């Protein structure tokens, strides 16, 4: 079981992990669960309390960072990327850094689009009138 080379591809066989790895799995599960509960707590807080815009954004930022840390744990420990050769890790992580530019650029574009539209093509917002029966067969109108 341990000395698989897969037709010569694998030089250093992935040794069967010690029982330390089972402890690692449960420890990581606990961390992920705690982070999720904190996220849900903040999420509920955001719903239940009327925060100022700045604090609202700050809390959302915290939740996003918590989710990113969850991603780190899942990829590094559950998917074992953290145990792989460093160059392999880099071929995965480095291209994904494109997302940083991707996200900032597109969200900034979206905000700019909104501001330009409001300035040059403002439309009277239509007030929502509550429909009589919300529960109905969802057929075509």
């Amino acid at each position, binding site marked *: 079981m341990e000395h698989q080379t897969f037709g010569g591809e694998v030089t*250093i066989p992935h040794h069967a992990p010690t029982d330390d790895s089972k402890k690692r799995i449960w420890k990581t599960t606990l961390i992920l669960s705690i982070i999720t509960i904190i996220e849900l707590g903040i999420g509920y807080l955001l719903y239940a309390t009327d925060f100022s815009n700045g604090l609202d954004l700050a809390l959302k930022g915290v939740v996003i960072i918590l989710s990113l840390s969850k991603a780190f744990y899942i990829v590094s420990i559950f998917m074992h990327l953290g*145990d792989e050769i460093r160059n392999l890790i880099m071929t995965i992580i480095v*291209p994904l850094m494109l997302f940083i530019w*991707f996200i900032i650029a597109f969200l900034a574009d*979206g905000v700019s689009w909104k501001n330009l539209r409001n300035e040059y093509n403002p439309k009277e917002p239509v007030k929502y009138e509550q429909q009589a029966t*919300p529960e109905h067969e969802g057929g075509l109108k």
Partner: protein
Amino acid sequence: MAQAAAANTKWWSGGKSPFNVEYGKLMMWYFLMSDTFTFGAFLISYGTVRMSSNSWPDPNQVFNSLPFAGHANLPLVFVSLMTFILIVSSVTMVLAVHEGHHGNKKGVVKWMFWTIIGGLAFLGCQAWEWNHLFHQGAWWGRNPFPNADGTVATTNFSNFFFTITGFHGFHVFSGVIINLIALIMAQTGVFEKRGHYLMIEKVGLYWHFVDLVWVFVFLFFYLV
């Protein structure tokens, strides 16, 4: 990983994997990267459209129902359940891979079974959510929910919701099928004969990816 021994090896001299992994595992990683960009593109386009809108439906007003709870207002409860189901199924998947490393066929079969159950439970929840929203009048091209500021919303909200959760749900579904095939292969002794459970590892990578995507879908649709 024996990084010290790794440092002394000529990795790029040919005749072996420079990353010390089997071809199939490496290709699964690169497939997952491509899928990451696909989901990333969907989520970022959703973010862009939402940022460009003056207002957007409040998720806590839209997603506040729970099966068997009637008309109770319970924001975040159902989606939290779905998130925990998927995280637990990821843990059972890791445990299946762990058993595979020890060559324990019975353990692999057991944990793969529970992973599949978790996947099916998640799909059931998602199906309930979709059906519930559909009966409230939501669908592609139809959005009955108002914006948070009280104005009429566009169909962007429901279009993005159904498209992205649908795409993700399809990945969960295909993941369940793949897990089932792997379970059957494990049970019938295919991996025992090969001498390794690498297929379980590869299938596990796909399943963790599915869980990861949900973490971000849940974040950007329901939480922030």
